[in-house]
């Protein structure tokens, strides 16, 4: 398990991280979300030791992270980068060796990696001759080549087409199932909601919400119901007492319930107005939670 405990970092007068704590347990995919400039990249760089924390601690398997442990981490920086003139396979072997693989393990691991990621026929070419999509795959291979104990990926899905997203999701799932904690940042909240086990929401250098997706969605005080109602008179929504319309669509609406209002109240009002075809309690989406906590 990876733990950040009260990690802070400032750059001159700008506070980038202000007491950030969260953890990524074994076998979990953790989405790291937050607006631009919230401190996601700084936090990841501190985990990888590329930046130093002013205060706080990064712990791995219960102990403060040292160089030896970090060598077993896999990282994909937001600023993608490989040696442009170095051949793909050589590059992966080199990075694998820097991460501690020996001279026989590294080439085998590099070959395995490019095969899994689907670039095996281009491995003798310099990286700069590959298409952007293939470069992205090699970048992922660079994070995976040494069979890391922990994966930290900064915006790994940005710039991928839907097929690429599926491939990457599959690869990350495999890692998680093999027991590797995966932490990745993303702006694609629907994607995070779909594939992550838990989410850490960060804004202005602080963790504003964290937990499993389910916890987050049911955590809010807001209770929403969605009603579809055929042949109701226009404007019936306004007649419902104890609830407020927050979204209207053809043939229905989403209501937010006031303090003591039971969901039935809306259902009863809808029945009175027309024929109810659908009725459900709505949990807020990650996007809605995001908007709410970031604005608040």
């Amino acid at each position, binding site marked *: 398990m990876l733990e950040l405990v009260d990690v802070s970092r400032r750059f001159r007068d700008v506070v980038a991280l202000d007491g950030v704590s969260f953890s990524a347990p074994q076998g979990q995919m953790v989405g790291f979300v937050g607006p631009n400039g919230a401190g996601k990249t700084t936090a990841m*760089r*501190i985990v*990888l*030791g*590329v*930046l*130093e*924390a002013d205060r706080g601690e990064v712990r791995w398997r219960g*102990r*403060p992270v*040292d*160089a*030896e442990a*970090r*060598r077993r*981490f896999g*990282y994909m*920086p937001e*600023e*993608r*980068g*490989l*040696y*442009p*003139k*170095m051949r793909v396979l*050589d590059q992966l072997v*080199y*990075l694998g*060796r*820097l*991460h*501690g693989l020996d001279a026989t393990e590294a080439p085998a691991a590099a070959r395995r990696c490019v095969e899994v990621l689907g670039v095996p026929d281009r491995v003798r070419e310099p990286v700069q001759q590959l298409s952007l999509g293939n470069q992205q795959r090699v970048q992922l291979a*660079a994070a995976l080549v040494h069979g890391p104990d922990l994966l930290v990926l900064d915006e790994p899905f940005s710039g991928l087409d839907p097929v690429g997203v599926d491939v990457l999701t599959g690869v990350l799932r495999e890692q998680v199932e093999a027991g590797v904690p995966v932490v990745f940042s993303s702006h694609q909240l629907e994607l995070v909601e779909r594939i992550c086990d838990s989410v850490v929401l960060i804004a202005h250098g602080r963790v504003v919400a964290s937990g499993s997706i389910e916890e987050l969605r049911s955590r809010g005080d807001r209770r929403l119901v969605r009603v579809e109602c055929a042949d109701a008179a226009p404007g019936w929504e306004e007649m419902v007492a104890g609830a407020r319309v927050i979204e209207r669509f053809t043939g229905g609406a989403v209501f937010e319930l006031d303090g003591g209002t039971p969901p039935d109240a809306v259902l009863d009002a809808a029945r009175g107005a027309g024929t109810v075809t659908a009725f459900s309690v709505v949990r807020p989406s990650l996007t809605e939670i995001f908007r709410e906590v970031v604005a608040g």
Partner: protein
Amino acid sequence: MSATGTTRGGRRAVRLVSRREFVERIRDRGFQISTSITLLILVGLIVASSFTKPGATYALGTQASSDVIRSIGNEVSSAGDAQGVHVGISSVDSQAEAERLLRDGTIDAAIVEGEHGPVILVQSSPPDQLVGLVQVVARTALARDALANEGVAPKHLEAALDQRPLAVRSLEPPDPHAKSNSAVAFVGVLLLYGQLFGYGFWVATGVVEEKSSRVVELLLSAIRPSELLTGKIVGIGLLGLLQLTLMATIALFVSNAVGLLTFPAGALGAAGLVIVWFAIGFAFYSTLFAVAGSLVSRQEDLQNTMTPISLVILASFFVSIGALSSPDAPLVKLASFLPPSAPLAMPPRLILGSATPAQAVLSAAISIASTVGMIRIASRIYASAILRTGRVGLREVWRSRRTTDQATGVRST
């Protein structure tokens, strides 16, 4: 800051980085081509210089219509041969022809009829050695004519004019290798300058390449900045040493084959000196070049941060060229002990016999000690500048806390 490579993992990282630097560069087609071209030029120079005869060669025009001038010409030619100066005589019909030959460079000087006897004609500034020779011969010849006209018997005349030249006695015996030593020292300084600058520049561009391609962040997630810096310097430095050794070996071999150098022991020693001083100089300069590279994010901006270093190397180079003619000048002596210039100024002094081995050891010790200090300063700047983008100010990175070294360091040990 913990020193580089103190841990086993650190040494391993340095070894891996230096091997990558070495292998990737030696594989580079551009490197192979430029090395071949340099070797070809070197061999060409050696072979070409073996064809030029030792001593000077001149062409003298003499006006055919004058017996006096013709005989002066012949005497100049034989007097020249006695002094190791070859003077070729070509006869000219008129002053106009002499002028034409002077202008097109066929002859270096001409003796023609003037109003008051023979005149030496040159294009602009006279070649001293040739003109001196002509003056001596002409004065003797004219004196002989004048005395003969006064009725001095030819027997007495020759005895009076044939005086031995003054004997020369040197306080120190002349070094029979002085000329070739000077040539070896010149080639040595040239090679040192080229290698120090060329390979230092490679360190700088290598640092920028990692910065501009952003691969540095990936590297620093696995190893420390000081390990990356040390590995890069060691790898590129070893390649420089290898190339220098290759050039020296081939140069010595070819020189020996064409018979230019007949003192393999001395030349071998000089080659060894150049190689050792390259190692010392490269250790010093490469850290500076690495700092220059770490301060910019694009190759185009490198020129600005490298200029001070280039100027220091260039100044050291000129002082060392001066050392070839006056190895005992105070400035040269001073330069041969100062760390930035010692790697260029000390080898020629040693080759020319102006510095003692003890002085060389002292100078090397000063250089190495200051290099250790330089590495500490340079790695601090490098470590805090390497992850910043844009043009980074020196003062700013010096003051800022290191971004990485401590964090990736061995906190647990």
